[in-house]
């Protein structure tokens, strides 16, 4: 392993690694435009110049392999001077339309100019005009004037999405990024080129002109679009409701996680956040009329206490069915199991029929629920559990007297008339969910609950990785988190749970469900943690 010195600090870097990677492990940031750790090395932007001792010329850090005894200076006068000259060339034809550009505020041209540019422009000639505001696909807008030809987008479509729509055409100062004839940038990962574009050449059509980036707050979470569980940052605005018609979320960006999604995410997840701000249930409703949470909790518990009692008219026990959802967190599913299955002996399921979506062998999974794996581990979808169709059928046959549905729209299973009939025949029909749907309209109690970005919790992705979803912003005024509602009901039923937060529920879950053993919120952290697999359980037993 070669040992080299960077800015007076020694480091061992693996064979074949480059100076920019070695510097990164030391925490030294070398500016870059074309270099991206997830793509091949192009070495064409020349901004990462460094001074290597005994080398007459400046070298590019991204494509200089480390060598034993190498002495590197990343911010010597000579290196800074070289970078300033490179930046001056890159900005020669730049239109400087920062006030209009959506990238400004997170643009590397702006950042690096302020860091080590700060020269007086000497370019007096006419700037080359190119095409502006070209919609290259359903999600991406191209501005050829702002482009510095780093070719990150070209390499992304060649190497990651493997669709090859982009190319660089013409030569010299007329060189421009563009689509090959007849092509559209419509692959399922097209939004990523916006993230990797270091300047404002590729911008998001969905986010276009909605806000300035310095208005955005960011919160780490996990995409709930499918079972892959890509790590993402949600960018939202709470204090300027005029910006996006009052919607809080403005965009979603992938967050690096080496084990799940690296730097990428799919367009479906990236643009699928609209439901969090549109069509939400906002008020507690009883038979369609307004009610309060206190009334709802009291009314529902009163009915729930009768579950298991003998109905004097029919001579059978009152029975409860619960259709949970793999959209819920592990904590909530665990509470559902403890309260409804264990304490009340209800028929509980979390397997709801959902048409399999599209999938590929990269990030997109056919299972569009984020927590199917977690529901299975907690035992709500295994072979002994009924499925949603069975519970609905039992309800229609009159075997169940009370039904609680979490978020699922029953009209996907039964006809509208049957749903109406079901609503009339049930003693108790609770719908708790985030968004309004026909089932909420037919239910006796419709409870508005928090979307996944508004609550703490964990999901287990398809590879058995437990990931925290975090809480970006508080729930809408009258909605509550599912776990809070369930805990309140458990309290009213005197079930003796001492838990007060998702973290405490998770601790109980880790003690109770073997695969979660040894996990805590702290250990899961920002990047998630693997579940105990059968193999690792055996390993622990051997050692």
């Amino acid at each position, binding site marked *: 392993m070669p040992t080299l010195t960077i800015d007076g600090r020694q480091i061992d870097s693996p064979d074949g690694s480059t100076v920019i990677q070695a510097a990164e492990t030391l925490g030294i940031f070398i500016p870059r435009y074309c270099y991206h750790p997830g793509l091949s090395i192009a070495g064409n932007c020349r901004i990462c110049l460094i001074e290597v001792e005994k080398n007459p010329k400046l070298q590019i850090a991204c494509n200089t392999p480390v060598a034993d005894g190498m002495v590197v200076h990343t911010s010597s006068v000579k290196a800074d001077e070289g970078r300033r000259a490179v930046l001056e060339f890159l900005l020669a034809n730049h239109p400087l*339309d*920062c*006030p*209009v550009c959506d990238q*400004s505020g997170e643009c590397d041209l702006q950042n690096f100019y302020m860091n080590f540019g700060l020269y007086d422009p000497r370019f007096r000639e006419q700037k080359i005009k190119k*095409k*502006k*505001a070209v919609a290259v696909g359903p999600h991406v807008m191209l501005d050829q004037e702002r482009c510095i030809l780093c070719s990150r987008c070209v390499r992304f479509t060649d190497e990651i999405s493997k669709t090859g729509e982009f190319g660089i055409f013409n030569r010299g100062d007329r060189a421009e990024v563009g689509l090959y004839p007849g092509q559209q940038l419509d692959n399922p990962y097209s939004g990523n080129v916006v993230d990797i574009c270091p300047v404002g050449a590729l911008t998001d059509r969905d986010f*276009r*002109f*909605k*806000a*300035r980036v*310095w*208005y955005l707050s960011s919160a780490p979470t996990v995409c709930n679009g499918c079972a892959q569980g890509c790590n993402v940052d949600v960018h939202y605005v*709470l204090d300027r*409701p*005029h*910006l996006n*018609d*009052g919607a*809080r979320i403005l965009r979603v960006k992938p967050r690096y996680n080496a084990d799940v999604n690296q730097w990428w995410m799919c367009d479906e997840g990236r643009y699928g956040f609209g439901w969090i701000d549109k069509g939400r249930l906002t008020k507690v409703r009883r038979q369609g009329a307004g009610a309060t949470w206190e009334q709802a909790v009291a009314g529902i518990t009163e009915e729930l206490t009768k579950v298991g009692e003998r109905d004097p008219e029919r001579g059978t026990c009152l029975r409860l069915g619960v259709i949970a959802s793999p959209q819920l967190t592990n904590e909530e599913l665990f509470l559902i199991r403890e309260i409804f299955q264990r304490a009340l002996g209800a028929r509980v399921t979390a397997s709801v029929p959902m048409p399999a979506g599209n999938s590929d062998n990269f990030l997109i999974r056919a299972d569009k629920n984020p927590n199917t794996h977690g529901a299975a581990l907690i035992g709500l979808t295994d072979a002994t559990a009924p499925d949603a169709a069975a519970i609905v059928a039992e309800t229609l046959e009159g075997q169940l007297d009370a039904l609680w549905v979490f978020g699922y729209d029953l009209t996907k299973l039964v006809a509208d008339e049957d749903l109406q009939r079901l609503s009339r025949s049930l003693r108790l029909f609770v719908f708790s969910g985030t968004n309004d749907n026909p089932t909420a309209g037919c239910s006796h109690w419709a409870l508005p609950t928090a979307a996944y970005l508004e609550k703490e919790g964990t999901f287990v992705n398809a590879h058995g990785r437990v990931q925290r979803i975090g809480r970006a912003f508080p729930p*809408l*005024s009258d909605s509550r988190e599912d776990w809070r509602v369930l805990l309140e009901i458990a309290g009213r039923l005197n079930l003796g749970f001492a838990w007060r937060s998702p973290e405490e529920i998770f601790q109980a879950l880790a003690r109770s469900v073997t695969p979660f053993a040894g996990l805590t919120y702290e250990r899961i952290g920002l990047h998630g943690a693997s579940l105990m697999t059968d193999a690792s359980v055996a390993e622990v037993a051997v050692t």
Partner: protein
Amino acid sequence: MAVKVLRRRDLTVWEKLYIPQIASGLKVTTAHLLRNLLLHSAHRLGLLQNRRAAVTFQYPEELRPLAPRFRSRHRLTVRDDGTPRCVGCMLCETVCPAHCITIVAGEHPDPNVEKYPVRFDIDLGVCVYCGYCVEVCPEDAIRMDTGILDVAAYSRDAMKLDIHELMNPSLRKPLTACMLEFPHECRLAGGEVSTRDHQRRN
């Protein structure tokens, strides 16, 4: 907090006599009267122009001249083709210490302009007239040089200016039609995007 008690000076005997004090007061008034009478008469004859005399303005019929850098009501400057110079960069909204500016940006039909404010509101009831918005603007799109001082209204809502009133300072609500000469999508022009206020959540 400590309180410092100040005793007023006792009047002297001369002051207590009262009549001499009235006379000295009248002396000051008469001196000003005679000085202004003399100077204004002289100004009429074109004399003593460099000596200034007191003036009374018959406001609001007669307006006082304003200093060139005086900050009065805002206006949005306009390009030759009648479109706003503003490109909706929201720097003024960002810098505004009173948070009185509200901008919603939209797509301009000309790709070389790209962006323009669909909605640009200033709440004059909140504005502190600091002039930062003028200073920060990279496009010279907002100025405070209309000379309009009499911003008065019967309600807080009426203190809010929208893009029509800002681009044409002679306009004032209620507006019946969109007076802008470019394809603006406001409600007055029959478009979807309105100048309505969005309800704050919670």
